[in-house]
């Protein structure tokens, strides 16, 4: 068995959301913490796609940011290609091998920079074109121009687009620029945080197709964050379902969609509108995601779960392996469902 490219163990991130000191003292309020990500672990094999799916506030974007080192984890570690990646301020040798694509293509590109500068920035930063020492020589500049052209071509943009500014592009084209920038250092691993959520469906299809083609051509590994189960089903090999900072079910795509085990996964799947079953009414999920400041004790899903019993309200279920699937649910473990 080959080593997985990305290994995440016991990852946790806690945010301090306490009131300012003066208010805490005056109003006798305690410090408050949000456990945005709590004990999350998974592995991604080379060339595969793991998708993390969940509703807003479940911690999926925090996982993405922890992975690329934008946040330092409170606990746990990220092992990249057998090497511990470290919290933040990682060595360039690791940074250049993983890149991130953000959700909002309007906010993630500098409006004052031309596309050629945006795409070339990682090249200059990492000296990927001809070594850092020679970054200012004429040869290096030429090779950067050539490389930017290649990168733009690989995402279906033209050489002339390099001279334009981001505002001259549509949302879908901007997201292609983001992808080109992410590919500049020839990374093996891309963390994509809702890359198509801000796009219209026909444009989403263009971007998803490009991402799939690039994966086949370059053997890329993806962590794909999305709230859209249909998109996840289209891109993923494995799927992790998150709820209030924890992974509640982790399985390969076919198994998860054919036979969801966790009651939350089942509810999510039931809640999706399906365009091909016109007239079918979906089963609404009851209740809402609880306030993450005061998560319910035991299994955090228990107030909404139709199978919850006494144990679910007291004891937090661990993510257990159960015939090829990993599920965190007492009811599944006890074979009640």
């Amino acid at each position, binding site marked *: 068995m080959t080593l997985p490219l990305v290994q995440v163990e016991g990852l946790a991130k806690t945010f301090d959301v306490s009131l300012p000191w003066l208010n805490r003292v005056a109003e006798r309020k305690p410090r408050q913490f949000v456990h945005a990500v709590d004990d999350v672990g998974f592995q991604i094999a080379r060339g595969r796609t793991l998708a993390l799916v969940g*509703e*807003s506030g479940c911690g999926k974007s925090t996982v993405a940011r922890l992975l690329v080192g934008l946040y330092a984890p409170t606990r746990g570690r990220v092992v990249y290609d057998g090497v511990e990646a470290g919290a933040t301020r990682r060595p360039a040798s690791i940074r250049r091998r993983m890149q991130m694509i953000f959700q909002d293509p309007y906010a993630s590109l500098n409006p004052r920079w031309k596309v050629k500068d945006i795409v070339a920035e990682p090249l200059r930063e990492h000296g990927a074109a001809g070594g850092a020492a020679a970054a200012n020589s004429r040869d290096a500049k030429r090779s950067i121009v050539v490389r930017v052209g290649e990168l733009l071509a690989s995402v279906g943009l033209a050489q002339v687009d390099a001279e334009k500014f981001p505002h001259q592009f*549509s949302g*879908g*084209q901007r997201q292609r620029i983001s992808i080109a920038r992410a590919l500049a250092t020839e990374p093996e691993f891309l963390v994509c945080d809702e890359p198509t959520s801000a796009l*219209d*469906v*026909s*444009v*989403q*299809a*263009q971007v*998803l*197709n490009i991402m*799939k083609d690039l994966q086949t051509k370059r053997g890329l590994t993806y962590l794909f964050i999305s*709230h*859209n*189960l*249909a*998109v996840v*089903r*289209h891109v993923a090999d494995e799927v992790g379902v998150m709820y209030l900072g924890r992974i509640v079910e982790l399985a390969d795509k076919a198994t998860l*969609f054919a036979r969801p085990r966790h009651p939350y996964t089942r*509810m*999510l799947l*039931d*809640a*999706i*509108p*399906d*365009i*091909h*079953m*016109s*007239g*079918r*009414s*979906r*089963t*609404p*999920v*009851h209740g*809402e*995601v609880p306030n993450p400041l005061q998560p319910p004790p035991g299994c955090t899903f228990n107030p909404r779960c139709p199978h919850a019993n006494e144990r679910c309200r007291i004891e937090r279920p661990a993510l257990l392996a159960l015939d090829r699937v990993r599920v965190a649910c007492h009811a599944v473990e006890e074979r009640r469902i």
Partner: protein
Amino acid sequence: MPSPLLEVDHLRVEFLGRSGRLLALDDVSFSIAPGEILGVVGESGAGKSLTGASIIGLLDPPGRIVGGEIRFDGARIDNLPYEQMRKVRGRHIGAIFQDPLTSLDPLYTVGQQLIETIQTHLSLGAADARRRAVRLLQETGIPAAEERLEQYPHQFSGGMRQRVVIALALAGEPRLIVADEPTTALDVSIQAQIISLLKRLCKEHGAAVMLVTHDMGVIAETCDRVAVMYAGRIVEIGPVASVIHAPAHPYTVGLMGSIPAMDEDRARLLQIDGAMPRLDAIPSGCAFNPRCPHAFEPCTTLRPELMAAGATRAACWLHAPAMRAAA
């Protein structure tokens, strides 16, 4: 066939900008029967929200109606003075917008807002109006409605706020509700709750709905008929099952194919190359012709009107036998 509740007839909306006139809606015509749910779908900038805003008389300047008519129950409403339109809006036509937080006033309790709306449109005393407000909140599935009446919008979650907005829209017992992306800001699990609520309540109250959304899934499970918009025009309109399963316009075909499906595996999604044209650069003839895989000679010069195409009506020359024969 009952006479339609709402008729939109050759509606044209224009924006006067520094760079000249932009025609944002061009000859849009459709009707909604009493109790019917019509979906309006399209990508950003297709003009679907603008159509909704024109109907409820909330078109923001510099946008203005420059042609056509909107008739509600046989009477024109597009040329009503502002004060008269205010009486129609809320009383006869309710509105639900995408963002439930901005459609509620943060400085008033939910009860104050509901009771004010009820008393504006129905002649009820304070106690009756309050009772009605409680009943509306209960109907929308808000637990502990009595206490919730005293709370402010920020004390409600997103899904609960959208329920309040629905209660507000229903407050005047309108016969038509214009819902503009009512579930777009919500998570899928909450989205399902809101959609089924909207469907049930409109049925109970006998209100017709114009549901504007970009989500084909929501359309599929909610609507009776659907209109597909592209670059300010309706390109296809028909019963929801026909539009989804046997789309006649190449744009609808592309749109349907580009949606990742839950029940089939496809290596690649069908993609429509390019993007929707900007309003200042709409191609002549059919606006879709530069992206259309089937474009032929008349498409670049002659603009197609809606014509019969199977079970739906599509604005596409492929469905005009004479044109095909000539080409």
